[in-house]
Structures are given as C-alpha cells and as structure tokens.
C-alpha cells in the first residue's frame, strides 16, 4: 500500500504543478456547464440528466487529460526504467498511476457537479434524484477509472501517442453520441449493475496488466 501511496502522492503533485493541465481542468469544469445550460445545447434536459451529463463529460475528459499527462510525463522524464528498477511491482505502479488520475479527475468532476447541482436546483426548482446523484458520484467516476486504465495501458504497451489519441477521440465520441440521444436516467437496478460492472472491469484490467513484465514496460 505504501508504494501505491507514493505513486499517487508523486503523480498528483506533478499534475498540480503543470499549469497547462490545471488550466485545461478549470476550463473543463466551468466551460461545459456554462455553455450547455444557457444555450440549451441538449434538448429536453432535466435536472437528473443534466447532472448525469456534467459527470460524464467532466470525468471522461479528466480521465483522458490526466492519464495523458501522468503516463507521458513518466516516459518523457525517462523515469519509467528507474521506477521499475525499484521494489515496486507492475501492479503497484499501474494502480498508483491510475488512482492518481482517478482522484484528480474525481476532484475536478466533483467541483463541476457541485456547481451544476446548485445551478440546476435553482433554475429548475428542484434537486436531482438520489439515483442521479449516485450515478454522478459513483458509477460514472468508476467508468472514468476504467477509461483511464485503458488509455494508460495502451500508452505503456504501445508507447506512441497516436493510438491513445484515437482512443481518446473514440471516448469523447461515445459521450457525444450519448448526449445526442438525450436519454432519460436508467433504472436503479441498471445503475447498480453498471456500477458493479465498472468496478469488476477496473479490477480485471488491473489484474491483466499486472501480468505484463517490467522488461516489457521499460522498453
């Protein structure tokens, strides 16, 4: 646990130090809600779907932005070989980085959600439902963790950025097409299944990735 904690500590510090990343995060947190709600970008929006959309957009954008920063930074500093030569295991290394990205993304998403919650409650006259809040605070962030793991794993295994960029575009594409459909909220059972599935997937990716050798990652 200590080694995972060390990775999280180091990566979050690096993320905070990068002014470009912080600026991008701030823009994402405030820009999307600021554009989406007043311009009625999405039709038939409700308090619940509004909260869901904010969570989906901020978490997927954060996963992509922070994962890119965290994993590419390690490579650009030529630090991967050094870290992998230490007692850290591949699982601890990968989990530490993924958790750092998740926590930073969650923090960013949380601020956006608080802003959106207040805005939606004031403008629409009532608060989002418990299911919507659960979806926004638990289910979507865990899917964000899954997305971060996939982007990070692709980057570590394939090295180059092209494939990761395409994956990021795909991720954004999925969210956008989802928004276009403007779906209503799924049922409580569906939300529960989605949450468990995301968690299971995050664990599976971690277990599969931990089988990759240090030699492969240090290449």
């Amino acid at each position, binding site marked *: 646990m200590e080694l995972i*904690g060390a990775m999280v500590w*180091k990566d979050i*510090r690096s993320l905070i*130090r990068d002014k470009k990343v912080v600026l991008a995060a701030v823009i994402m947190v405030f820009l999307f809600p600021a554009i989406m709600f007043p311009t009625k970008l999405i039709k038939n929006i409700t308090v619940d779907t509004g909260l869901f959309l904010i969570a989906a957009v901020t978490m997927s954008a954060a996963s992509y932005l922070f994962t890119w920063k965290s994993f590419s930074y390690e490579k650009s500093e030529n630090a991967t070989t*050094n870290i992998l030569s*230490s*007692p850290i295991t591949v699982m601890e290394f990968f989990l530490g980085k993924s958790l750092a990205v998740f926590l930073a993304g969650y923090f960013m998403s949380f601020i956006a959600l608080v802003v959106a919650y207040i805005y939606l409650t004031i403008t629409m006259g009532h608060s989002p439902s418990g299911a919507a809040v659960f979806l926004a605070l638990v289910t979507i962030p865990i899917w964000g963790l899954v997305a971060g793991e996939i982007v990070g794993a692709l980057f570590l295994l394939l090295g180059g950025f092209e494939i990761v960029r395409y994956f990021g575009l795909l991720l954004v594409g999925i969210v956008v097409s989802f928004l276009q459909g403007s779906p209503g909220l799924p049922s409580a059972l569906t939300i529960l299944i989605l949450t468990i599935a995301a968690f299971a997937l995050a664990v599976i990716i971690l277990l599969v990735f931990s089988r990759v050798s*240090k030699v492969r990652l240090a290449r």
Partner: protein
Amino acid sequence: MSFVIEINGVDKTYPGGKEALRGINISVNEGEVIGLVGPNGAGKTTLMKLLLGVSNPTSGYLKVWGETCTSMSKKSRSKIGFVLDQRGLYSDLTVEENLIFWAKLYAVGSKKVEEYLKDWGLGDVRKQPVNQLSSGMMQRLSLVRPLLHDPTLLLLDEPTSQLDPVARVNVIDLINKLKSENKTLIMTSHDLVGLERTCTRILLLQKGRILADGSMQELSSRLGVGERITVRYRGEISKDLLKKIYADYRVQAAGANTITVSGDGIDSGKLVRTLVEHGIDVENVEEQKQSLEDIYLSIVQKDEGKWN
C-alpha cells in the same frame, strides 16, 4: 561460496540485430568494487539494465543473490541502489519532493531525507524544482537517491559525469567509504583516474565483449604495461640504435630528444647504459607506474588492431 552477482554466458541482441553483449561471464563477491570501463556503446549500460532486471538477456542468465534478475524479489530489489544514465528525476517536482518520493518507495523515514539534504549540500535548493538546478546539482541529487535506503549493492552508471572536480573527489571519497563498509559496487565511468582510486577490480568492455578482467596489478602485469620510462637526451639516436631499442622494449613514443618505453619490470639502468654506450647524453629519466588510462588504451588499441 555464493556470489552477490553471477553472470553466465550472457548475450544481448536488440531487436534489429544490434549485438550489445556477447558471452559475458562475471562473478562478483561481496565487498568487491568493480569498474566497468569501455568506449561509448561498449555495452556497459546494457549490462546495468540487465542486472536491474529491466532488460532480458537473449541467452545466458544473470543472478543477484541467487535470484534471476528479471524475477527478483522485492526484498532483494530493496537492497540495491542504482543510478542509471537516464537520471529519472522528476523535473517539475522539487529536490525535496524527489527525495521524499524515493524514500517512500524504499520505506525510508523523512529524517533520512533531511540528513542527506544537509550532508550533500542540497539544503539551500530543497524547494527548487529540479528543472531549475544546474546539471552538477542534478547529478548530486541523482547520487543521493540510491543511498537513501542504505543498500548493500550499488549499481552506478556514470556517477561522476557532469560533476565539478571537488564534487568528483567527494564521490570518490564516498565510494571508498562504501567500500570500507563492505558494500558491493559496480560502476561505469569515463573517469579512469577515479576508478583507479576506488576499484578493486576492473572489467574492460569493448563491442560487447570483456577484453580484460582483474585488479590493476593483474591487468598491468598480464599486459606487460606495468611501468613507463621516459628518457630525455641530447644528441641524435642512430637508426641502428633505434632498431635495437625497438627490439628490446615496447616503445610508446619516440620524438625529438625523448623516448618513452613501457612494460613490466623494465630495467631503466640498462636502457640508460645502452644510450650512453652509443654516445647519447642522457639528461633525465622519468619512471612512472602505468595508469588505468594507459592499460585501457593499450588493450583497446590492441583489440582495434585485431579487428581492423
């Protein structure tokens, strides 16, 4: 007797066919300080990476404390300190944060970080991001890092590069201190004077092969380059006399009024007598023990000759 490091029949060929190491066999005992010497591209860094288990040999095996390097346990890894040619410092973290991170990785308390910051003259720059440090300071920081957890085996790739002369001497003193604590060290360096002053054994690598392996004395006597004698004279050496000198000695340089010969157990008196008998007025005789640089050049040049 079990070795700290055992390298047996190791070959390393990179994808694309570049041969980095060929038939490497090395056994290292506890407390040995080994200098890996060789030109750029000789395979020194590759060997370091193989020992750290972040690269695979194409054939053969490498073991540290009896464990195969690529599957070394956490316990063994935590007893190794290393500096790679790629320093791996985080440029936007401060000096202190870099050390705290590595201390956390090796479960070392923050007291130790404080101690090292002070002892290594990094206290004043502790809050500075690494990207604002001079390259000498960066190298100093990258040297502190592997010492934090008091390792018993140190693998140091170019530890003295980019250091100023004072810091270089400090590193040499540090290595001698580690040697006195019976730590095992393997280091690569182009600072041959430094290696000569610290290493108990020298390994000379060239084009991925070990050309020589032994202590300074062993290498110099094996190669017959133990001493160097430079004679300054007045007058002119005849062709016949020069032929005779070339026949009897290994002549390193013959210039206007000086001649330098090298070898093991050369009788300088005999050389002077020969010159005097031929009417040469000898002004000065200088005897020097051969340095690692001489040995290095002698072996590498001989090897180059063999391949060219």
